């Protein structure tokens, strides 16, 4: 019985590579740009370019490529199912039939669709993984806070929003330990969590969820008081001990990203999508 065992919050892999040393804001913006471009990529040419670029980032990050690939492994079964579904079920009126099997028929359009969504998901996942592998959670929240700052002008309480994230990350592990104790305390009174049907198992959630949520709300009340007594009144008038500093590497990275985006946008616009 060890619930905390499986918790890997932010899969940050400390390192000294150029990518690790980049300002988190650079990395967040770059990841966002890459994600948006991915959402529009609908040809094999663009995916080849994306593959090339991703490979270069992996190389520069000093993260063993095997590590990134291994992260994809748990996705594989569902990915295969998704691929098969699209292969047999996606159709366009004018598509050619590749082969038939039982009552199902695989079409060319289905094949392309299956390939495209698989590629998209794979690269989306790789981009976010690279971001979290090379950036610590604290850096991520600092970067996010700094990036959202301009939105204050349109009334978005950016600092407060990031504070919710900081609190969430701080309390996951505390609540995980608490959860483990709650589960054990109820097991000690004879609850067998691994036995029973759907309804019985659902019923067993109550003696765990109630203490968990009630404990969490009690903690919240105490944290509110503690934060207020440390003069927290929200983001207004607040200063920061650490401010992020852009370096030359960030400038270089920005140039690379902009150049790459222009090329990719050009390809996306000019190359005919496969579907």
């Amino acid at each position, binding site marked *: 019985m060890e619930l905390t065992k499986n918790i890997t919050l932010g899969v940050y892999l400390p390192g000294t590579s150029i990518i690790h040393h980049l300002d988190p804001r650079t990395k967040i913006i770059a990841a966002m740009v890459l994600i948006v471009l991915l959402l529009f990529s609908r040809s094999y040419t663009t995916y080849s370019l994306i593959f090339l670029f991703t490979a270069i980032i992996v190389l520069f990050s000093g993260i063993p490529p095997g590590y990134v690939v291994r992260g994809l492994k748990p996705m594989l079964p569902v990915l295969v199912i998704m691929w098969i579904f699209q292969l047999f079920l996606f159709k366009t009126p004018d598509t050619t039939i590749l082969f038939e099997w039982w009552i199902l028929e695989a079409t060319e359009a289905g094949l392309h669709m299956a390939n495209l969504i698989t590629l998209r998901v794979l690269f989306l996942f790789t981009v976010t993984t690279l971001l979290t592998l090379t950036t610590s*959670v*604290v850096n991520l929240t600092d970067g996010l806070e700094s990036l959202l700052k301009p939105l204050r002008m349109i009334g978005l309480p950016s600092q407060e929003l990031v*504070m919710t994230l*900081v*609190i969430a*990350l*701080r309390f996951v*592990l*505390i609540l995980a330990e608490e959860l483990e104790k709650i589960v054990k305390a109820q097991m000690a009174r004879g609850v067998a969590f691994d036995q029973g049907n759907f309804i019985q198992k659902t019923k067993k959630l109550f003696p765990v969820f109630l203490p968990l949520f009630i404990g969490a709300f009690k*903690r919240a009340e*105490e*944290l509110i*008081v*503690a*934060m*207020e*007594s*440390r*003069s*927290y*009144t929200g983001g207004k*008038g*607040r*200063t*920061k*001990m*650490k*401010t992020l500093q852009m370096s030359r590497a960030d400038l270089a990275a920005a140039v690379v990203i902009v150049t790459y985006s222009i090329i990719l946008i050009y390809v996306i616009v000019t190359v005919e999508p496969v579907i």
Partner: protein
Amino acid sequence: MEKIIETIDLNYSYRAGTSEEVRALYDINISVLPGEMLAITGQNGSGKSTLARHFNGLLTPSAGDVIVKGLSTRNKENIKEIRKVVGMVFQNPDNQLISSIVEEDIAFGPENLGLPQSEIRERVNWALHTLNLEKLRYEPPNNLSAGQKQQVAIAGVLAMKPECMVLDEPTAHLDPRGRREVLESSVRLNKEEGITIVLLTHYMNEVIHCDRMVIMDNGRLEMQGTPREIFLNSKEVKKMGLDLPVVTHIAAGLNRKGFNVAPDLIHTEELIDNLCRLK
């Protein structure tokens, strides 16, 4: 001497004005003097925590007033100034640390005060140094023992440079070693940094290090004086659900048996001295 905190006929009820009103404090008059270490003690539910929460305006009196350095906590505009004067540390260290890194958590208070960056850094370094926490600077709080977390919480309040620190049962969740370390820190902050300390506790071996103590019972302030004076009334103290310090218990027992030992001893050394004189 100007008082740091003064309560005047302080009364407080939870959920005042509703059918579920619960009276928690009755006519409390108490002052906290600059530089002193004051113990507030009493059973759980005696109202000591409710009282302490009035000291920096977390609660506002239902009747009466609380004055912090001349400012009433009833006036909302004073609250920010009051919280700069009176800092507060709570019972459960897990529920008062916000950041996932020690030094960032200590910076939280000064950041809220809107101080310049260099000053925040200076204060964080000073707080870490004063509480001997430099080694833990980059640790996540989850890796620390409960005692260490509580020291970090104290450092976080210290970095706001308050004149007075109210510690609301800071040792209740700690093991004996953590308890000793937190007590030692509090005494040091009082003696070396000149910070006024209000310590809420029901451990009598912590109370004996304080200059003055009060005992609360059922929302009323029942006894007030130096620990020595108060522990002399052992019956009264026990009636309020509290223990006597071990030394007092023994000294009083010897005194009753007719030995020439003063009955109002509180420190081990005093008892040893007294007994050595009997040799």
